């Protein structure tokens, strides 16, 4: 019996040891592979692959995608544990309340300053300036209605809202501080009726005229697919969710050239670009990896800047 347990232990240990080093054909484990974390959304995946191909284009390092992480909290844990070196995209609003347990801030620049400072101090990670897009809540109406009623800003809705059916994300309606009640207080008008639903349904509900206005996500490809108009949040009611890459300082010290590569991506993706990329992924059903490659080839890997 003793002999056997010994044998099993040895076997298990060898297996563990063997799997501790990187296996031929599968990167990972070794320090020379940069691990880029993405969550399940198309935009983080596309940006993750863009980073991967940029790193492989400019350096001899290998980069690997650690994909489909459950949420930004899982991503944060993975960064802290060192399973992931770079987060493809993190959003100011999400991590203010998630990783930092702080109150939401309405001013985008202030929010950015806070996360940059706190991530440097608390987690030894560098939070870059924004890619140039934000994935926040945005009020949306049909294009023809917007033109007919002359709607450009959320405030413009005040005269027509009492006739409008309003479709919203069911996780938003009761959110503390930024939910519907506060929305009504801030803007001073109410909709005729509010319908909470799955966020994925609001776009077609609006397009099919079941709803007159909806609360959408500002980078969703279906805004482009159905040609929906978005209204400017003129009272800055919704908190900013500006997207940025985040990298661990350990990685940047070891490979300083990566800092320059990530810096090249800052400010290169506005909302229209991201919607276009999401459109290719979600509607045309291209893989983020393919989209990233094509995009970088079309832009010459941002070499000219």
């Amino acid at each position, binding site marked *: 019996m003793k002999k056997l347990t010994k044998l099993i232990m040895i076997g298990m240990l060898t*297996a563990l040891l063997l799997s501790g080093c990187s296996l031929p*054909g599968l990167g990972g*484990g070794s320090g020379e592979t940069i691990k880029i*974390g993405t969550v399940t959304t198309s935009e983080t995946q596309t940006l993750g692959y863009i980073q991967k191909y940029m790193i492989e284009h400019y350096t001899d390092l290998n980069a690997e995608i650690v*994909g489909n992480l*459950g949420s930004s909290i899982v991503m944060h844990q993975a960064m802290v544990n060192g399973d992931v070196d770079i987060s493809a995209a993190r959003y100011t609003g999400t991590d203010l309340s998630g990783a930092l347990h702080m109150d939401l801030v309405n001013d985008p620049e202030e929010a950015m300053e806070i996360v940059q400072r706190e991530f440097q101090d608390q987690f030894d990670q560098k939070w870059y300036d924004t890619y140039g897009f934000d994935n926040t809540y945005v009020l949306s109406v049909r294009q023809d209605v917007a033109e007919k009623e002359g709607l450009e800003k959320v405030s413009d809705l005040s005269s027509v809202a009492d006739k409008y059916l309003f479709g919203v994300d069911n996780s938003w309606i009761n959110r503390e501080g930024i939910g519907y009640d506060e929305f009504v207080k801030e803007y001073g008008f109410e909709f005729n009726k509010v319908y909470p639903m799955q966020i994925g349904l609001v776009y077609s509900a609006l397009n099919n005229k079941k709803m007159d206005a909806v609360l959408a996500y500002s980078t969703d490809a279906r805004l482009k697919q159905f040609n929906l108009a978005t209204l400017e949040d003129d009272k800055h009611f919704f908190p900013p969710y500006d997207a940025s890459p985040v990298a661990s300082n350990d990685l940047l010290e070891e490979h300083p050239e990566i800092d320059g590569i990530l810096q090249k991506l800052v400010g290169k993706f506005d909302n229209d670009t991201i919607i276009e990329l999401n459109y290719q992924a979600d509607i045309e*059903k291209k893989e983020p990896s393919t989209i990233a490659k094509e995009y970088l080839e079309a832009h010459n890997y941002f070499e000219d800047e």
Partner: protein
Amino acid sequence: MDLLKELVTYYNDNGAYVWTEFYRHFLMSAYGVLFAAIVGIPIGILIARYSKLSPWVISFVNVIQTIPALALLAVLMLVMGLGTNTVILALFLYSLLPIVKNTYTGILGVDKTLKEAGNAMGMTRFQILRMVELPLSLSVIMAGLRTALVIAIGIATIGTFIGAGGLGSIIVRGTNAAEGGAIILAGAIPTALMAVLADFVMGWFERLLSPANSRKLS
């Protein structure tokens, strides 16, 4: 028909990506089974020799098999972190049962008179193992590897949840997309194909190594 068209466009656009994930998926499964074979076959031989140990070992590997794959992955993730190595360890553990059990059954199934004949010829225990028991049980052991590999290919699809990639990534992306039916199929079809192909190839080996055939070969 639309679905078929979408599927063809998908493979056209993303062929290279599907291929890398396919290769990755296969490697993860193969490594898991390979390590399990390195560990499991000796264990199987050992417990066939010392039959008192067999109930312990068999029930131990049985218990591993009853743990749900997602739970096992999650627990291993806490210890080993994200990535392919964790998935390979999980596949290793799941592959132990078919490999250990088949080796054990195969060795026990060898006719006693043959072993006695070997003994009478003055063969050592190791020689009996190498020249009598192993050749005669090889096809049963191969059957165990075959089962293990097919199971591993199936389980490897959920490796994507701990960031290991593989064909599961394509399936999960399909479930997240608004109308992702075609993407789900685009990931599921190669996975099923790989399992069927692995089953076929291993089955061919199994027949090749069966005692009836090896006599013909030699």
